[in-house]
């Protein structure tokens, strides 16, 4: 997919359906947990982490992407068979366009840029329609990691909720009604004839 076409698809698929994605970057991040079953290559991870930290830096009292475990959330998203493959591909394609842009602008790979160059690239990309759309998806994933239930290994120690003084709903989800369990119920053969089966 070319960058321009990609914007079109994004506007129609991503924004309207509010399908998620997130990120950010500061110089001295807290340690990011690298998922065991990581989908992205280290070079791609590098790009994503820079953007995640930039979009949502850790600040006075504001939890950063390490505390929110955003990268793990993004990895889960990429592995979720219930998430549309085009949406996942879109996220990954965005990374390669950023890598291309690094080459076009600085004739260097993203990993070889210094902090100032990365910063410049970030600003330049956000001025592009495709870049803004892609970053917006990352922000949606960041927001999910900020505000979804810690059951999903995000919003660690409720740091997102605490920061925004958000009161979660009751009951909170648990292992019994975990997203994956409910998805599994959708393919369960069952015939119910008695109340005791419920």
């Amino acid at each position: 997919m070319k960058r321009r076409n990609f914007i079109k698809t994004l506007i129609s698929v991503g924004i309207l359906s509010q399908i998620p994605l997130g990120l950010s970057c500061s110089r001295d991040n807290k340690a990011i947990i690298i998922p065991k079953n990581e989908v992205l290559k280290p070079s791609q991870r590098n790009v994503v982490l820079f953007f995640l930290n930039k979009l949502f830096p850790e600040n006075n009292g504001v939890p950063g992407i390490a505390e929110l475990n955003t990268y793990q959330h993004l990895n889960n998203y990429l592995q979720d068979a219930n998430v549309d493959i085009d949406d996942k591909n879109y996220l990954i394609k965005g990374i390669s366009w950023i890598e291309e842009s690094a080459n076009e602008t600085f004739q260097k790979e993203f990993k070889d840029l210094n902090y100032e160059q990365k910063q410049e690239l970030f600003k330049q990309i956000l001025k592009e329609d495709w870049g803004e759309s892609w970053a917006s998806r990352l922000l949606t994933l960041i927001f999910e990691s900020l505000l979804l239930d810690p059951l999903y290994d995000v919003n660690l120690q409720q740091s997102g909720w605490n920061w925004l003084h958000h009161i979660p709903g009751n009951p909170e989800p648990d292992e019994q009604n975990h997203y994956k369990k409910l998805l599994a119920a959708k393919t369960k053969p069952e015939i119910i004839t008695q109340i005791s089966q419920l």
Partner: protein
Amino acid sequence: MNYKDLSKIEFDICVIGSGAGAGPVIYELSKAGYKVVVLEKGPWFRTKDFSKDELVATRRSVYTPNLKDEPQVIEQEDVMGNWKAQSNYETGNDFWNGNCVGGSSNFMSGYFSRLKPKDFKLLSAYGKIEGANISDWPIAYEDLEPYYTKVEHLIGVSGKVVKHKFLEPRSTPDFPYPPLKENYVSQLIDKAASDLNLQTIPLPRAIISQNKGDRNACYYSNYCGSYGCSSDAKGSSRVSLIREALKTGNCTVVPNAKVFYLEADAPDKVSKAFYYTPEGAKEFIRAKIFVVAAQAVETSRLLLMSKNKFFPNGLANNNGQVGKNLIFSAGGVGGGDLFYKDFSEKIAKKLAEPGVFVNRTLQEFYELQDPKSGKKMKGGTIDFLWEHANPVSKAIRQKWDENGNLLYGTRLQNKLYRYFNDLRKLKFEIFVDWLPTDNCYVSLDDKVKDKWGDPVAKIRIGHHPHDIKIGNILAEKAEMLMKKLGAKNIYSGVSGYPPSNLQAGGCRFGNDPATSVLDKNCKAHELENLYVTDGSFMPTGGSVTYTWTIYANSFRVADKILERLKR
């Protein structure tokens, strides 16, 4: 028991779908001792499966199908006046609602209003409107009144009857359940309305405020619409009707059974309903009577898919009426921000109180006077409610600055913090009559197929300009009230884009088979054992949300079926 065993039984009634339109028939027929089987395309989520999990409720496809597997095609008019059809897999314009036992009624907010006597005869009461296919109902308000009352008791409706200009005639003095607890803002709304010489009324809810059998009263969870209820206070058809039907021993529910074909082996009789099992096998059910209640769009789709030599254009469709005159409960939305700093600390604290409801509606403008002709015309309803507490969705709406640029970093974080802590958004929803037109209908798409290879529903979503005219009049009134009560950043949006969760029509009822699919008892004119009991029967929808009427009508049809079976 397995799927093959089921196909050996001849049931009295086979019901397709299990939502608001299906529940009353399932309940009444099981209670009366008839053998009922329910084919439901989604799973049976138990009450313990529901929690306040935003990931499940709104962020991923759990209660609705994945659009890659089961797309629908939406046809919209572009600025040049051309109709453009696009799969919602590409656009995300999802017209699926709750697909599980109990259907969307599990996830509704339960704002409940009756239609008014004149809503049953819109054409005679207000006259023709060019370009709209308005027709009177073949029944009157009086025919439905006892069933509205039945819903109040069986589903459980809470509220308080207050005399007002458009109060519907009632056979009982008040609701069986007292009003739910209210937020302080309801008093502010009443005061602002009264200053403007308007009368606000308490909005009834399909939520019980006191325990009822094995259902517990509402505990004000703060996450109601789009979420399943953990106390069973919400009047879903699953807890209020189907669970009760199961207790009779006469009801069999087959979840994850997607019906794709109704077979008619005689010109006037359906004999079998074919469905896919979760493993993808094709099975069937035999029954004496078939009742379809798959929600308006999918009901029309199923009939259109069920072609045979007697019905080459789809079941009950020899007059080309199936799918036509689809309607929505719509009008517009708007709101304004209540900044805590604009109130005393004590009042601000009360406004911030989560869980308790707004439950206010304005029906003062249910009838309007046309400024040009001076004639009476149909107006609508304005409901008030808090912005949903869903935090991810709230955050997403803060992503952009006033010029439409993406915010990030500290600016974004400051905006988020302020939004979550400095204010509460009060919203309003406007409901006008969505006029039925030739440009709002369901057909089958000839290219796009679902994961089983079946043609998907193509939904043309045109609207009548009159809807916008009335919507704008009401939006102006709502904004006036918001201003009076001290809201800031007031906005409203009136559009012809329909809310996908409030659908009806497509198989309207009437006395003339040339212009309707169903007779006045919601039996297909052309078939002697096929009924439709979801919102599809409605030729017009009144200016309120539909579900109370859908429930009530399904109870009425259940009585008609019982009368027939007893004969």
